């Protein structure tokens, strides 16, 4: 019954792991060859794979796990998807409905444990609930602000036979969808933006989720307003566009931060305005006279910054509604854009190129040269993530995937594999630090088993680099528990898993190693032994305002 419903919802892949409480599902799985099941090596891997699949494919990722430990292993993956508004359906087995609440073997309160990291969840104790629940779950996961939905199904329900009354529509009274635009507010917002002396637009993940890139471009050009993106909004606006500010936030570009801090009108579209974007809240955008916030989730309004104009709507519809009302653009605009150009020249992205050690930026620049704008890059968390975000001129949406809101180490490998399942037509590159990589490295087996053409770029700095940098710069220079010199020989590790790998220590070997990776079909790993002292810049010290960003010391 469950499997038929999944087929009806158009599911292609299930990322899962069997166990006592979901055995009935697995018993019938072979009868459904259209549902391709990927056996992961850890349930967290399944959740991240489904997440990567969903982000790359634009369809909800589906996960199976058994009760108790199986379901609880999903929690980090659910949270990652929840924080980044990724549609996902997690189907977990639960003990028999007659045993619920009696501490049966492998029973756990999965709903309780996951309710804060899911958009919605269901405990199914009766077969007649099932068709409606599955249909609703897909609807909720994919509409409005997307997110993961968990369905906890008692084992006896999985086994039950029932006549299939499948609802062909959903009616969920408590589910509120904010799609429509208040036209008065849209007009107001357009006028404020056009009439601003120093406008800035910031674009978040919501722009990508609602496919509003074109409208964003039209609006930015018509209003002559510069655009920065959040980490998750990368790709929403081409970095090489003259109006681009590249990335904002506490590790954003210097010229973007200057623009935000000097803006008089700040429009924030499809974003949560979290602390990584604002840094010290009381010093965020201090010169703004009019904040405009566009988001589909009403609860984001005023959560961190109370805006003057709040547009609770789908980003594309909101921007579209604003377009006709821009009117005349303020005369001071040329001066403002000129000022931004000067900041761009004064605060470029820079790195140390010639200290004899391998620089991560050199590795990434070569990788991106090959990836161009036709490959998906999935980054892990840490320094590697920010380097991967900053050192490429993303000019199309959907090419950069990473765990932004949750910052989950270990995300990249399984998510890259999921992305490859979702988009086999696109090259997929996985960028990871060695610390995060070993958190989910067991999924290499999946890459090998399915001969997934994913190239893994390990930026190996023998340390928890991002933490090391924070300790060096903000915690008295005391390096505490960040040393990762005792790690496996990654080339041998890959050999054991059955995939080819190379180690690179010199600049000259970067290009040949990538050549080898590209020549090889199937998974390939390159262990880049990078400068262990390489840092991420610019960076705003923790607790400080965006104004106080620090640049690479050798250039400051």
């Amino acid at each position: 019954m469950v499997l038929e419903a999944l087929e009806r919802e158009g599911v292609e892949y299930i990322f899962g792991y069997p166990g006592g409480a979901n055995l009935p599902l697995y018993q019938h799985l072979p009868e459904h060859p259209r549902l391709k099941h990927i056996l992961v090596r850890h349930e967290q891997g399944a959740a991240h794979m489904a997440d990567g699949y969903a982000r790359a494919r634009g369809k909800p990722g589906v996960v199976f796990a058994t009760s108790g430990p199986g379901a609880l292993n999903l929690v980090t993956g659910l949270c990652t998807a929840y924080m980044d508004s990724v549609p996902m359906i997690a189907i977990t087995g639960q003990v028999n409905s007659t045993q619920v609440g009696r501490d049966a073997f492998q029973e756990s309160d999965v709903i309780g444990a996951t309710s804060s990291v899911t958009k919605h969840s269901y405990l199914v104790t009766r077969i007649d609930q099932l068709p409606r629940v599955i249909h609703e779950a897909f609807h909720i996961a994919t509409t409005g602000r997307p997110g993961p939905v968990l369905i906890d199904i008692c084992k006896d329900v999985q086994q039950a036979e029932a006549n299939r009354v499948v609802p062909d529509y959903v009616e969920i009274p408590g589910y509120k969808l904010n799609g429509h635009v208040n036209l008065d507010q849209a007009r107001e917002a357009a006028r404020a933006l056009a009439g601003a002396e120093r406008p800035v637009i910031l674009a978040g993940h919501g722009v990508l989720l609602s496919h509003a890139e074109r409208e964003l471009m039209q609006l930015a050009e018509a209003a002559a307003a510069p655009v920065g993106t959040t980490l998750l909004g990368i790709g929403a606006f081409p970095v090489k566009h003259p109006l681009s500010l590249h990335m904002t936030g506490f590790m954003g570009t210097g010229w973007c931060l200057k623009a935000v801090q000097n803006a008089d009108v700040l429009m924030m579209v499809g974003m949560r305005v979290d602390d990584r974007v604002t840094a010290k809240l009381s010093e965020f955008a201090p010169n703004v006279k009019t904040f405009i916030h566009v988001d589909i989730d009403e609860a984001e309004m005023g959560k961190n910054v109370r805006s003057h104009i709040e547009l609770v709507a789908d980003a594309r519809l909101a921007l579209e509604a604003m377009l006709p009302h821009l009117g005349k653009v303020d005369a001071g605009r040329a001066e403002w854009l000129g000022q931004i150009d000067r900041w761009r020249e004064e605060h470029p992205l820079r790195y140390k190129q010639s200290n004899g050690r391998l620089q991560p930026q050199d590795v990434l620049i070569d990788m991106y040269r090959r990836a161009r704008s036709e490959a998906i890059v999935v980054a892990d968390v840490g320094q590697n993530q920010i380097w991967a975000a900053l050192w490429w001129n993303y000019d199309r949406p959907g090419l950069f995937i990473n765990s932004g809101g949750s910052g989950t180490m270990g995300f990249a490998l399984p998510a890259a594999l999921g992305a490859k399942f979702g988009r086999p037509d696109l090259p997929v590159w996985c960028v990871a630090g060695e610390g995060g990589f070993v958190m989910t490295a067991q999924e290499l087996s999946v890459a090998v088993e399915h001969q997934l053409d994913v190239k893994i770029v390990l930026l190996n700095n023998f340390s928890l680099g991002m933490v090391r940098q924070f300790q060096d710069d903000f915690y008295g220079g005391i390096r505490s528990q960040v040393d990762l010199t005792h790690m496996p020989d990654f080339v041998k590790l890959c050999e054991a898993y059955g995939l080819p790998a190379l180690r690179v220590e010199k600049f000259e070997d970067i290009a040949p190693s990538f050549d080898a990776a590209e020549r090889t079909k199937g998974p390939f790993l390159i262990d880049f032994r990078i400068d262990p002292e390489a840092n991420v810049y610019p960076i705003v010290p923790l607790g400080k305002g965006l104004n106080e960003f620090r640049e690479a010391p050798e250039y400051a």
Partner: protein
Amino acid sequence: MPDIKLVPPHPAGTRPTSPASGEVNKIRVLSVLVEDGQNTLTKVSGVLRRRGFHVRGISIGPSRQPGRSRITLQIDHGHAEADQVRKQLERLVEVIEVEDLTGDDVHSRELVVATVAASELNGLLERGAKVLSTGPGGTTVEFSGERQEVGDFVDELTRHGIVDVVRSGPVVMRRTA
């Protein structure tokens, strides 16, 4: 179409204060219509806890619509923006609607049932208490009123030697025009 919210409850351009700061003793009342279900209470209380909202009083009972209940919440305004509570609760699929019933144009009632040792009950009866039962263990009375009246009533009870006392949460309804 609602009006443009140019004067939101929290001045625009400001950043809401952290949950711990702000005015205390400002109570807001929210009436939350929910879908009955195993998870509803957990979800509602989960949101309140997670977002740092402090609950002063709560009551739950069936609503006029079958399968739905009404939760009345008294929350400390000082612990967070009441507006945020409403929005966060409305995100829950189990929540049908949330209405802010803070203010004067509402009926707000609470019930107290108490057993007192004294047989002299005039002070209580004058306030409108009703005797439910009497026995060797004491006299049991009930009283209902606004939060403040119920508080005063409980103060009065102490003078009669309280054996036991229970208070309900609030039930609040908008006055008809």
